[in-house]
């Protein structure tokens, strides 16, 4: 190892853990309470765990993890050339490890840290007081869950009982029937797959080291705030006290149309634009090297998505069944429509077309899955396949950007359409809005209300701006500090050998 390489390695590690260090300082600044406090919105009502709900949340968490690896890893790696197959798989697998560690250290707190509406009860004095300082709905109170504090059930020696802190819906404060650990794990899997989706845009050319730092910063600075705004009771949460004025009462996002798909898709577009095209893009053939992987990956994404959407119900009740159903229907309609369009316009339906269509359908239904009825889900599948088909073929060709694996064309465009269609088709009949005082709300345009539509538009615009500007700034800095792309030689040789000293296929 040359001295410059050693220095660079140290720098990377320093950057990787700078955020971790900052969080530690925050924690040190907090005065340790004299007595452990048990938070309770309604004192005396001990939160109960429902074993059925908890079983479903644990299974859902595993399903969502399966979406990244092997689902997305296979889906993406089949689409690249064979000299880059491992690099894409490595990005997915590495992010499973990296994002989990960030989530465990401070990510969950930044996203879902309690807001000051929650009261804590002091054990000795039985006095209630708002325990956490205000963060104005823009960022979670990272201190509360820092280093998995208050997440795992702990044994209380004096009371001879297990103290369990159920996660409470930040929107209405109702206790969920699963332990906080289950909710934390479920959300952790979202934190993994969202950056992994971006990998599709810079595949075959980004430096692995830069990608690692980019994802740490992206997860911390873009995902965590956004998750807090939308799901953590922040400014974009439906019914949240912060979602006033321009935020129009907050947007509906059942399972991550804005947080996951728009944020990753738009960031993917910025990545594709800033990294530039792959060498020889448009001149040399870059066909997918193994569409069988892609087909397997797409099928695994479909299955995993049931955890993603139906799991977002937070329990194993009727809402989960409804979300499961519309998810399935929308994916089916999407795959059918995309393949059908190819059949009409190109003469033959293709495997990649069917895969792309079903994933586009899944993306589109994600924000809407708890809020729409089955027939509208079919309509959304048809609509998103038409729009994403156009984005991936005509629009991409017209503007000439190299979004290698269409992360923007499917997740950015499909997510945006899904968020907007949620404003059209959302209905209280579907049962997704269970907030106290809100269950009788009219929701989408078909329900006869325009307020949700406005909130959806605002949320889409804000998410686009945050993702685009944030990604742009992070990439600008990393470009100056580390460089974004591998060298020309390394790119021609393939990232498997140049970045990892490995080859995907060795038959002799």
């Amino acid at each position, binding site marked *: 190892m040359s001295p410059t390489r050693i220095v660079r390695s140290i720098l990377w590690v320093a950057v990787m853990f700078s955020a971790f260090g900052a969080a530690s300082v925050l924690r040190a600044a907090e005065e340790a309470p004299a007595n452990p406090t048990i938070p309770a919105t309604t004192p005396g009502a001990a939160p109960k765990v429902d074993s059925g709900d908890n079983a479903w949340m644990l299974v859902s968490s595993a399903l969502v993890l399966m979406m990244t690896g092997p689902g997305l890893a296979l889906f993406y790696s089949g689409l690249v050339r064979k000299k880059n197959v491992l690099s894409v798989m490595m990005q997915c697998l590495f992010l499973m490890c990296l994002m989990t560690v960030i989530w465990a250290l401070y990510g969950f707190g930044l996203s879902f840290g309690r807001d000051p509406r929650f009261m804590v009860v002091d054990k000795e004095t039985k006095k209630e007081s708002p325990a956490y300082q205000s963060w104005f709905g823009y960022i979670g109170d990272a201190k509360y869950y820092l280093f998995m504090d208050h997440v795992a059930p702990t044994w209380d020696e004096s009371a001879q009982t297990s103290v369990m802190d159920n996660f409470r819906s930040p929107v209405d404060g109702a206790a969920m029937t699963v332990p906080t650990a289950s909710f934390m794990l479920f959300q952790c899997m979202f934190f993994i797959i969202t950056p992994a989706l971006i990998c599709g845009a810079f595949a075959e050319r980004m430096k692995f080291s830069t990608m690692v730092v980019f994802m740490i910063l992206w997860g911390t600075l873009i995902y965590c705030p956004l998750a807090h705004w939308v799901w953590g009771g922040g400014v974009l949460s439906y019914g949240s006290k912060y979602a006033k004025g321009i935020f129009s009462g907050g947007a509906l996002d059942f399972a991550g149309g804005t947080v996951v798909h728009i944020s990753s898709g738009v960031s993917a577009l910025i990545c594709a634009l800033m990294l530039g095209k792959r060498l020889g893009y448009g001149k040399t*053939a*870059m*066909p*997918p090297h193994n569409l069988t992987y892609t087909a397997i990956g797409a099928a695994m994404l479909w299955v995993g998505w049931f955890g993603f959407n139906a799991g977002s119900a937070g329990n194993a009740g009727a809402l989960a069944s409804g979300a499961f159903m519309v998810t399935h229907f929308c994916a089916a309609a999407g795959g059918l429509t995309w393949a059908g369009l190819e059949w009409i316009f*190109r003469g033959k339906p*293709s495997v*990649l*077309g069917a895969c*792309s269509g079903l994933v586009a359908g899944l993306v589109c239904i994600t924000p809407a899955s708890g809020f729409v009825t089955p027939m509208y889900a079919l309509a959304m599948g048809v609509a998103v396949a038409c729009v994403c*088909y156009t984005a*991936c*073929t*005509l629009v*991409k*060709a017209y503007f000439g950007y190299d979004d290698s694996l*269409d992360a923007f064309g499917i997740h950015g465009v499909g997510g945006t359409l899904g968020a907007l269609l949620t404003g059209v088709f959302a209905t209280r009949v579907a049962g997704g809005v269970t907030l106290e005082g809100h269950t009788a709300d009219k929701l989408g345009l078909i329900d006869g209300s325009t307020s949700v539509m406005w909130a959806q538009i605002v949320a889409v615009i804000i998410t686009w701006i945050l993702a685009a500007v944030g990604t742009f700034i992070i990439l600008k800095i990393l470009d100056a500090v580390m460089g974004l792309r591998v060298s020309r030689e390394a790119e021609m040789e393939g990232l498997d050998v140049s970045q990892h000293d490995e080859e995907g296929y060795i038959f002799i």
Partner: protein
Amino acid sequence: MKKVEAIIRHFKLDDVKQALTERGISGMTVSEVRGFGRQKGHTEMYRGTEYEVDFVPKIKIEIVIPDSKLQMVLDTIMGAAQTGQVGDGKMFVYDLTDAIRIRTGESGADAI
């Protein structure tokens, strides 16, 4: 001795192998190859992007035979591999200096 290299269609391999073994040819080497001649390639389409695939997959059979069997082998392959369409392939005939069986050290016609 001669060496015959025959480039044929994938789905003709079994026919050719059967016809040759029936006529007493006891060994051959097969490999998957890509190339183009008059058939040229075809077009593939991935998410709206068209690619010209110039190199068409074919099967290459290599057979080593005594001079006396050359015409019979060429006729047999012709008969078995022909469809009459462009893309049936080609045969190349080489003069061969020697052949040696590694196990015994036999050489020439004995080694085939």
